[in-house]
C-alpha cells in the first residue's frame, strides 16, 4: 500500500461548541462538589476521598495511555501508529493531575491513618520508615517529575519527526520508551502503595501495584477507544479503520481478562489463606460494600468478556464504545472500592450526587487538556517509518 491511499487526517480544530460542552460538564461537577460541601454537608472524609478518587482516575487515564504507547513502541508493533497522537496527548495531561492531588492534600489526614503520627498502633509504627509525610512527598514529587518528563520528552521526539525526520528517530523513541517502562514498572507499583494501599494501612498485598496498574490500563484503553471512535465518527481521523478498532477491542477484551486474572489471583489467595491480617480488606468490602463488590466483577470482567468475544463486536464502533463506557465506569467503581472502605468507612460512604456529578468535572478537565494538546500537532505521525504498516494490515 502506498501512503497516498491512506485517508488523510484533517488537522484538528478545537471548536467553541466543544469548549462550551466541556464547560457545562465541568460546571456540573463543580456544582455537585459545592452541593456536597455546603448544602448536603457531607462528611469531610467523603469529600476528600472523592477528590482523591477523581484525581487518581484523572491521572490513570493519561498514565495508562503513555504506557500503552511506549510498550507498543518497544514491541515494534505498528498498528497503533495511526492513533498514536491520541495516546501522546493523553499522556501530556499527567502533570495537571498534580493540581488535583494537591487540592486533596488538606484532606490527607482523613484518608491515611498513618498520617496520624501521634497515635500509631504497633504495626503502623513498624512502617514509619516508609510511611511518613516527608518521604511520601518526596516520592510524590519524583513520580510526577519522572512521568511528566517522559510524557513531554517522548512527545517532543514524536512531533519533531513530523518536521525533520531523522534516521535515528526510531532508536531514540525506543530507548526513551525503554527508560520510561523501567521507571514506570517501579513507580506504578510504589505509587499504588503510596496512594491507595496505604489507605488501609495495616493491609498489604504484593500484587496490589500490578492489580491497580491493570485497572488503570483498561480504563485508559476504554478512553482511547472512545476518543478513536469519536474522532472517526466526526471525521477528525478518518484514517482509523475497523482493524484499529478491532485491535483496541482485543486489548480491552484481553486486559479485562488480565485485570480479572489479577483480581482473582489476589482474592483467591487471600480467601484461601484466610489470615485475618489479609482478609480484613475483603471482609470489609464483601460485608459492607456487597453490591459494588459484585458489580465490580460483573462490569469489569463478565460484561466485556461476553460482549467482546465475537469478532464483530470488536469492529463495530458504536457497540465497542458502549462497552468502553461501561468498563470505564466499572474501573471508576473499582477505584471507589479501593479507596472508600478504608478512607471513609461503610457508615459514611455512599454513592450520591457527589460521586456521580464530580467525575464530570474531571472528565471535562481531562478532555479539555487532551484536546488542547491534540490540537497542537498533526493528528497522525506521518513520518513514522512504520506508518504505512499501521494502515495496511488485517486481523485474521
Amino acid at each position, binding site marked *: 500500500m502506498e501512503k497516498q491511499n491512506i485517508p488523510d487526517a484533517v488537522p484538528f480544530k478545537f471548536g467553541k461548541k466543544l469548549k462550551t460542552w466541556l464547560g457545562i460538564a465541568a460546571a456540573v461537577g463543580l456544582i455537585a462538589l459545592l452541593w456536597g460541601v455546603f448544602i448536603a454537608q457531607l462528611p469531610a472524609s467523603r469529600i476528600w476521598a472523592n477528590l482523591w478518587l477523581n484525581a487518581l482516575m484523572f491521572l490513570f487515564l493519561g498514565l495508562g495511555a503513555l504506557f500503552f504507547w511506549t510498550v507498543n513502541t518497544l514491541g515494534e508493533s505498528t*498498528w497503533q501508529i495511526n492513533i498514536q497522537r491520541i495516546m501522546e496527548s493523553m499522556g501530556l495531561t499527567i502533570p495537571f493531575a498534580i493540581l488535583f492531588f494537591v487540592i486533596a492534600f488538606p484532606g490527607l489526614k482523613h484518608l491515611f491513618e498513618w498520617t496520624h503520627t501521634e497515635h500509631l498502633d504497633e504495626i503502623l509504627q513498624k512502617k514509619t520508615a516508609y510511611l511518613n509525610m516527608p518521604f511520601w512527598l518526596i516520592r510524590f514529587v519524583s513520580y510526577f517529575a519522572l512521568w511528566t518528563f517522559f510524557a513531554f520528552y517522548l512527545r517532543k521526539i514524536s512531533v519533531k519527526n513530523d518536521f525533520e525526520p531523522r534516521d535515528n528517530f526510531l532508536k531514540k523513541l525506543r530507548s526513551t520508551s*525503554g527508560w520510561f517502562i*523501567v521507571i514506570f514498572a517501579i513507580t506504578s507499583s510504589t505509587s499504588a502503595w503510596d496512594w491507595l494501599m496505604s489507605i488501609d494501612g*495495616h493491609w498489604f498485598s*504484593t*500484587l496490589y501495584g500490578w492489580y491497580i496498574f491493570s485497572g488503570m490500563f483498561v480504563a485508559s484503553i476504554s478512553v482511547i477507544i472512545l476518543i478513536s471512535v469519536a474522532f472517526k465518527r466526526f471525521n477528525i481521523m478518518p484514517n482509523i479503520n475497523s482493524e484499529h478498532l478491532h485491535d483496541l477491542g482485543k486489548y480491552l477484551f484481553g486486559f479485562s481478562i488480565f485485570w480479572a486474572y489479577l483480581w482473582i489471583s489476589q482474592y483467591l489467595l487471600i480467601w484461601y489463606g484466610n489470615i485475618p491480617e489479609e482478609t480484613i480488606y475483603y471482609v470489609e468490602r464483601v460485608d459492607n460494600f456487597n453490591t459494588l463488590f459484585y458489580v465490580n466483577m460483573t462490569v469489569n470482567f463478565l460484561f466485556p468478556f461476553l460482549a467482546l468475544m465475537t469478532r464483530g463486536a470488536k469492529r463495530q464502533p458504536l457497540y465497542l464504545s458502549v462497552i468502553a463506557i461501561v468498563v470505564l465506569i466499572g474501573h471508576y467503581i473499582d477505584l471507589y472500592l479501593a479507596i472508600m472502605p478504608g478512607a471513609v468507612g461503610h457508615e459514611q460512604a455512599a454513592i450520591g450526587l457527589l460521586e456521580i456529578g464530580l467525575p464530570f468535572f474531571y472528565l471535562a478537565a481531562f478532555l479539555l487538556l487532551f484536546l488542547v494538546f491534540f490540537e497542537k500537532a498533526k493528528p497522525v505521525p506521518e513520518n513514522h517509518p512504520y506508518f*504505512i*504498516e499501521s494502515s495496511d494490515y488485517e486481523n*485474521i
Partner: protein
Amino acid sequence: MMHVSPVREPLINGEKSYKDITKDVVAPVRAKPGKLWFVGLGISAIVMLIGFAMIGYTIWFGIGTWGVNRTIGWGWSITNFVWWVGIGHAGTFISAILLLFRQKWRTSINRAAEAMTIFAVMCAGLFPLIHMGRLPLGFFILPYPNTRELWVNFNSPLLWDVFAITTYLLVSLLFWYMGLIPDLGTIRDRMKTLWKKKVYNFLSFGWKGSARHWQRHESMSLILAGLAAPLVLSVHTIVSFDFATSVIPGWHTTIFPPYFVSGAIFSGFAMVLTLMIVTRRALNLKEYITVGHVESMNKIIIATGSIVGIAYITELFMAWYSGVEYERYAFMNRALGPYAWAYWIMMTCNVISPQLLWFKKLRRNLAFTFVLSIFINIGMWFERFVIVVTSLHRDYLPSSWAMYKPTWVEVAIYMGTFGLFFTLFFIFIRVFPVIALAEVKSVARSSARKFLGKPIKKQSSEKQ
C-alpha cells in the same frame, strides 16, 4: 500483501525461494544422522536410563532415599518440577501469545520451542508423580467413580495442577501437532521410500494443502492461540498456587501468579535460546534463526527478567512493609540465612545478569547469549529452590527448623530428566521439521532479505 516497512530487519537471511526453504528445513530429516548425533542421543539415553533407575529405586525404598525431611517436605523434586514447567512455557507463549501480538519472528522458532515445551512438560510431570510417597496409588488423584463414592479435593492446588498440567500438555500437543500436519505433508512428499511416505502420510493425517483446509487451519490456530494464551498464564499461575495458597511465609504472597508466569517465560526463552543457538548451527539453519531472532528473544528475556526482578524486590519490600514478623524473618533469612548463597545466585543470574542485555551489542552476541541463557536457567532453578526450601526450612516454629541437602538419588533423577529431554529432542530434530515450514514460507516474501520468486512461465499446457 501486508506492508512491511523496509527499516525492519529481515527475518530470513540470504536469498531464498520457497524451494530453498523446503530444502533447508527438510534436509535434517532426509539426511543420515551424523556421528555427533548418535553420540548425543546415546549419552542422553544413558543418562535418562540412570534417572529412571533412580526413580525405580525411590519407588522401591521410599522417599526417604531423598534428603527431604519433616520440615522440608519438598526439595529438589518440586524445585525441578516448577523449573521444568517454567521452561515449558516458552513454546506455547511464542506460538500463542506472539501470534496474537502478530510478532512474525516467532515463525522460525515456534516449532522447536513448542517441541521443547512438550518435552519439558513431560519432564516436569514426572516430578509430582515420583514425589508421591505411594506412586502406585497415584491414580487416587483422578476423580473416578469408586465404591466409596469418595471424590477428590477440589480445594487442593495440587489437584488443580493435575488438571492444569494435563490440559497444558494436551493442548500444547494439539497445537503443536496441528501446526505440524502441513509440514509433515511436506516431508511426506519429499521422501523417496514408500514406507517413509506411508509413515509420514499417516503422521500428516493425509494433508494435501487445500485452501479450505488452510482456512480452517488458520482459523483454528488463531482460536487455539486464544485458548492457549490464558492457558499458559493459568498453568504457572496454578503452579504458583501450590505455594501461594498456603500460610507459609515466603509462599503465601499474592504476587506469585503473575510473577511465576513471567519467570516461567523468562526461563523458557532462555532454554529456547540455549537450544536454538546450538541447533541453528548443527542443522545449518542460521539463515532462518537469525541474530535478529536471538535479539528479539533477548528482549523478551530482559522484559520478563526485569518483571521477575521487580517481583523479588516487591516481595522483599512487602515483607518488611507488612510488619509481620514471620514474613520479615522469612525474607531476612533468604537473603542472609544459611541458604543465602542460593538467594544471591538467584539474584545475580536472574536480575543482574539479564540487565546486560540493555546493550544491543550483547543482545546480538550469540556466544554471550548462550552463556547468559544457561546462567538464567541456573538462576531460575535457584529461584524455585529458594522458594521451596528456604521458605520451609525456617517457618513458624523455630523448634522445627531444619536444613535440607539432596541425596545423590535426587541429583540422578534430575539429571535423568535432562536425559529424557535431550533424548526426545534429538529424536525430534531428525524426525520432524524443526522450523514451521508453512509459516516461514508465508512470511518469506515480505520478510526475507531477498526473496527469489521464480520467473513465471507463459502458457504452457501439456496434456497428460
